[in-house]
């Protein structure tokens, strides 16, 4: 019976994996954005 569902299970796993990768990319992008804002703010403070 389990073999019958193998294709479905692999599909579900790949979809979950894709979602996780997308989520990680989004999270990293958000963190980098915050860090970049902090660096820019620091530099402008030093410049002032």
């Amino acid at each position, binding site marked *: 019976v389990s073999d*019958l*569902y193998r294709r*479905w*299970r692999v599909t*579900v796993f790949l979809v*979950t*994996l894709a979602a*996780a990768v997308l989520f990680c990319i989004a999270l990293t992008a958000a*963190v980098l954005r915050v860090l970049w804002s902090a660096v820019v703010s620091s530099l402008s403070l030093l410049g002032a």
Partner: protein
Amino acid sequence: MDGSDGLGCMLVAIGYLLAGLLLCLAAVPVAVIVALVFTGYAIYLYLRGVAAALGVGPDDRTVKLPEPPTRHEDGRDPAPPHYLYGPALADLAQTIREGRDRPYRALLSLLTKIKDRFFDWSEPNPLAWAFGGCLWLGLVLGALLSVLTVALLALWQLLFWSMLAGAAYGLIQALRGLDALNLWVRGIWMFCSSTCHRKVLFPIYACPYCQRKHHDVRPGRYGVFTRVCVCGTRMPTLLLFGSSQLKAFCPRCGDSMGDRAGNAPEFVLPMLGASTSGKTRMMLAIVRSLQERDGLTAEFADEVSRSIYEKYAPALSHGTDTWKTVPIRDTPLRAYRLHLTAHHGGRRLMHLFDPPGEIIETFENMQAQGYLTAARTFVLVLDPLTIDAVWWSFDDARREELARYRSGMSADHVFAQVLQNIEALGVQPKKARLVVALTKHDLVRGLVAGGNSDAVTAWLESPKIGLDNMVRSMCHAFGEVRFFRTSAWIEDGMVDTGIVSLTSWILDREGLKRTGLPEEDL
């Protein structure tokens, strides 16, 4: 205390102060980095858990699913359910279990390691405590972030499964509707002509490999387009996808419904008449006429029909007697089933019933003939030997010779009995057709008028014959009435033209046009 000691203490204090300041400045970035790294690690562990729960990769921790029954029991068919109907939910629960436990165990392990490494209370070390605190803070932040992430991923998984299940459910309903529409447009309904004599909505189908019976193969919990039998054979779920190629059985009586049930519109053709009126011979002649017709292919839909026909059909040309159809108590009448395919297009499944003549005598007997309520055309077989004018036109010797072929009931009495009983069964004759066959033309040659329906009608209504009341009643009661003079005798290998005309008229009215007879004869 001298001056150098005081300076040394001050320098140590300044050192601690600077170290503390640096630590405070570094604490936030360290905690953030630790949190992000742990979140990434937690996602990785979650995905490993999901992979294990779904059996992807070497670590197989799939949930054990219940085995399907080996035969139909408790409303369950011998087939594993479709993935989205049961196994998906079990898998979801297992992925949540596996995906949740692994990051949680990793978090506990890391916290324990940090505690052991940086918080050794026997040797006070403020720098180690501070660094350990940063790591703890980062892990706690990471744990919160990873809980959020894993929860979002699990939610996405649930959403994905729900979308698939919703789409599958919609597709199932759409396919069921489409199949019902297809049957309605093509005028297809299925009929059990073996035992229970009722219309069947959804037959039981047998697996073509192991013959296990599946009670409802329509799209549903066992599959959308196909279902898999417990033996591993795929079966189509709808007539649209070819389920008519499977062996069908009646869900009420369990008897076979013949080959290719549901492939074509069906019609029921009962042949009613008194005993010894020639119904059985006429039925055999009708089958032969259908088989020999140009423009039409007639095939038996089951082996029983074929073997009975092959056994008795030679009697038509040899002149020997056929069997007498006898009523058997509590044993339902079985129909002779034929697939009819017109070469110009159109297919029908014909259920031809040849009940014993005794059934028309009482309502109780007629009541057991459930197939009558499904018929749109009735064939009334009348014996011309029962007409006095015909009978008394023979001399004594001939009458003695023909006595064994003569039916016991007069034609008008047979019709009255049939009409009364079918009306009592709930049949509306006005919506039905009546085909009146005056049989045994080979025995009464030259005495019964023929040619076409009008000529036979005029002959029956003539003062000499005196059956004008019966003809009027027939025309008044039924929506359409046709008269034929027939003979079941095969002469020179040819079926009687009356039988050919009669079958052509019936086929035409049942929607099989141009099957071998000119339009003007119809």
